[in-house]
């Protein structure tokens, strides 16, 4: 039947509809509404359980890697001497236009005209759910199955920089010399795999800000620091759900 023929038809009117038809129509409408309402009610329920109320530190024994490398940053000790940055540049051959780790600065008034200056060292957080790894089209960046370090395979990198956009911590840069994205790997190739116990930045820090360690080693300083019950430990941008492995605290 063509549209012109429809126009010629006489309007039957709603009052002549059989009640069976009305019921079927209403039932259909209710079913559709039910699906949407049910869906939105379900989506209001948190997918995570109450663990999020326990802070960002994973429960003892819940570390997926062995050793599970971590860095604890005692933020209020940082004085921005930038020895960590210099050591990182030397150790990992970082060009002047990029960084594997840097220090952010914030100044704020804390009342009565008193100003507080805060230095915040940042680096790759070696997330348990790394957004950069998820978006990489060539698996050039990957989560090391043993140590949990987020690593780079420079040969596979096509330089699309999607990982740089995905990283919640701005911890990646494009290294022209490699024609690939470069990032912190906890000095795995330059130090840790050669038997050193500390990363270059951690070893260079004069104030004990950066504590590199293994979360599965309950005797390690890093483990002890973040499991002190009287201390507040936080991570950066927890809302991303990336589950970072760099923890921050004030000493």
């Amino acid at each position, binding site marked *: 039947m063509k549209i012109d023929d429809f126009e010629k038809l006489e309007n039957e009117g709603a009052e002549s509809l059989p009640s069976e038809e009305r019921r079927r129509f209403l039932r259909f409408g209710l079913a559709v509404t039910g699906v949407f309402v049910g869906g939105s009610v379900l989506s209001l329920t948190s997918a995570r359980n109450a663990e999020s109320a326990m802070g960002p530190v994973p429960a003892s024994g819940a570390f997926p890697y062995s050793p599970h490398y971590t860095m604890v940053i005692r933020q209020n000790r940082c004085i921005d001497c930038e020895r960590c940055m210099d050591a990182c540049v030397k150790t990992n051959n970082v060009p002047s*236009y990029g960084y594997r780790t840097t220090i952010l600065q914030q100044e704020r008034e804390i009342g009565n005209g008193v100003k507080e200056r805060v*230095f915040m060292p940042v680096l790759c957080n070696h997330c348990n759910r790394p957004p950069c790894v998820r978006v990489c089209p060539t698996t050039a960046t990957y989560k090391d199955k043993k140590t949990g370090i987020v690593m780079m395979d420079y040969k596979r990198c096509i330089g699309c920089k999607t990982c740089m956009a995905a990283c919640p911590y701005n911890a990646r840069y494009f290294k022209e010399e490699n024609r690939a994205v470069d990032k912190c790997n906890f000095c795995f190739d330059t130090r840790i795999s050669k038997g050193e116990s500390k990363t270059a930045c951690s070893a260079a820090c004069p104030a004990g800000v950066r504590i590199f360690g293994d979360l599965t080693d309950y005797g390690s300083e890093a483990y002890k620091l973040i499991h002190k019950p009287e201390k507040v430990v936080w991570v950066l941008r927890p809302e991303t759900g990336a589950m970072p492995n760099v923890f921050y605290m004030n000493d």
Partner: protein
Amino acid sequence: MKRNNKSVMTIVGLAAVIGLLVSSSLSFGEEAYDEDTYGPKAPILWTKPVKGVAFYHKTHTMDAGLSCDNCHDKIFEMAAGTAEQKADFTMASLYKGKYCGTCHDGQMAFASNTRCATCHVGVKGYNKLTGAAPQGKAEGKH
């Protein structure tokens, strides 16, 4: 149109008055700080053993009420940069009551093992105070 011109003139006039007030109060503040009484206005910047620490005479003399001979020459020599040439110019010495630690002991002034970034302005603070450009970092490039 006429009214518009008038309101523009009023705004310009107001801005000029405010500007005058602000600049006069600023210049008044500058005049009140006498370098002979309170010490050099520019901060003393230390780069050893770590870069960089800023010391402001104003905070200690004009604001806190210390006189020159409270620190000079027993704790610090008059010539800037003398202390940092010494090997014991470290935080450990401060904790033992030397140099800044003479007063910064938690009794007279905040203890020298607290509030690190109050005096430690860092490389960023040093560059800002000396007007040096941050090394190697291209502005706005991410």
